[in-house]
C-alpha cells in the first residue's frame, strides 16, 4: 500500500480499513492482519501500525483477542456512521474546491443535476 508522506500514516491506515468496511470487503467478525504482518507488508514502522490499531480499538472498530488475532467488531450503525463521516469529508473538500473556483451553492446544485441527467439518474 502506498502512503502519502505528507499526511499522518496512522490515519491513512485507519482510513483504508474504513474504506474496506464501507465497500463490504471486510465484514463483522473478519480477521485482519496482525500489526506485525501489516507493518511487514506495508514496510512501515510497527509503532505506527500499533498506534492505528489502538485507535481503531478505541473507536470500537476492531478487537484484539490474545493468541487469536484482531477482528472486526464494527456494527451496522457504526458502518453507517463511518460512511456518513467519510462522505462529509469528501463533501467538505468538494465544496471548498468549488467555492475557491468561484461557484455558488445554486450553481453547484444545478451542475450536479446536469451530471445526474447525463449519467442517466444515479451513478
Amino acid at each position, binding site marked *: 500500500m502506498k502512503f502519502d*508522506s505528507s499526511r499522518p500514516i496512522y490515519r491513512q491506515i485507519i482510513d483504508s480499513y474504513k474504506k474496506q468496511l464501507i465497500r463490504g470487503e471486510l465484514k463483522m467478525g473478519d480477521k485482519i492482519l496482525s500489526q506485525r504482518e501489516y507493518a*511487514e507488508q*506495508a514496510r512501515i514502522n510497527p509503532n*505506527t501500525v500499533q*498506534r492505528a490499531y489502538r485507535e481503531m480499538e478505541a473507536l470500537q472498530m476492531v478487537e484484539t483477542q490474545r493468541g487469536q488475532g484482531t477482528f472486526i467488531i464494527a456494527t451496522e450503525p457504526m458502518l453507517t456512521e463511518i460512511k456518513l463521516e467519510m462522505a462529509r469529508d469528501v463533501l467538505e473538500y468538494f465544496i471548498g474546491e468549488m467555492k475557491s473556483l468561484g461557484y455558488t451553492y445554486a450553481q453547484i446544485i444545478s451542475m450536479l443535476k446536469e451530471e445526474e441527467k447525463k449519467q442517466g439518474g444515479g451513478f
Partner: protein
Amino acid sequence: MIEFKEVSKRFGSTLALDKLDANFPTGKIIGLFGPNGAGKSTSIKMIAGLNRPDQGQVLIDGELPRMSKAQIAYLPEIDHLYPWMTIGQAAGFTRSFYVDWDNDKYHELLKYLNLNAEMKIGKISKGQRAKTKLLLTVARRAPYLLMDEPLSGIDILTREEIINTLVRDYREGEQTIIISTHEIAEVESLVDEVFFIDQGKIMLSGSAEEFRVERGQSLVEIMKEAFRHVDQ
C-alpha cells in the same frame, strides 16, 4: 535513552558538533537527518564510543559510551569487516563477543537475505556487503542499533531487502534504532522520531506523525524547507 548534553567536538579547524543537545528516546526508530558534513556520522560514532566529546557528555542509559559497547550494534557507512573472512567466519567472530547473539535468527536471516556463509566478504558485491553488515548487527538482539547511511550507494532491490529486514525484526518498545541518512524519502514511513541536524546543531526535532499532522508536509519537504538557506 541516549542523551547528548551540550556536546562539542572539533576536528582540526572544523567544528563538527556545536553544543549539541538531544535526547534520543528508547524503543523508537529515530531518523537523524541532515546534509553532508552536518555532524551525523560524528554523533553516531560518539554513541558507539569511537570518539569522545571535547566538551559536554554523551550518556547511554546513564553510562558512558565506552562502558556500553555491549549494548550497541554499530553499522558504519564504510566496509569495516575483514575481507578475507567468509560470512560464516565473521559471524563466528562477532558472536564470541556478544551474549545477545541469536543464532537461529542468524541462520534465518542468512536465507532471507540470499546470502551464503561461504561467501568471502572481500569478493562479494556492494549490495551483498551491505546486507552482510546488516545481518551481523540484526542477528544480535542489541538494545541499540546505530546505522550510518545504511542505504547509500545500494541498488533499489537491495534497499528494499534491507528495509524489509529492519521492519520484520524490529522489537518495538524494546529496541532503539537510529538511522542517519541524507536519503530521507527511503525511510520516510519507517521513522517515529526525527532529528534534523545541521552544522553540528539540532535544528528541529519531534515526532514524524505530529509533523505530518501539524504541517501537512512530508519529512522530505520539511527538510528542504529547513535547509534551503544552507544551499545559498
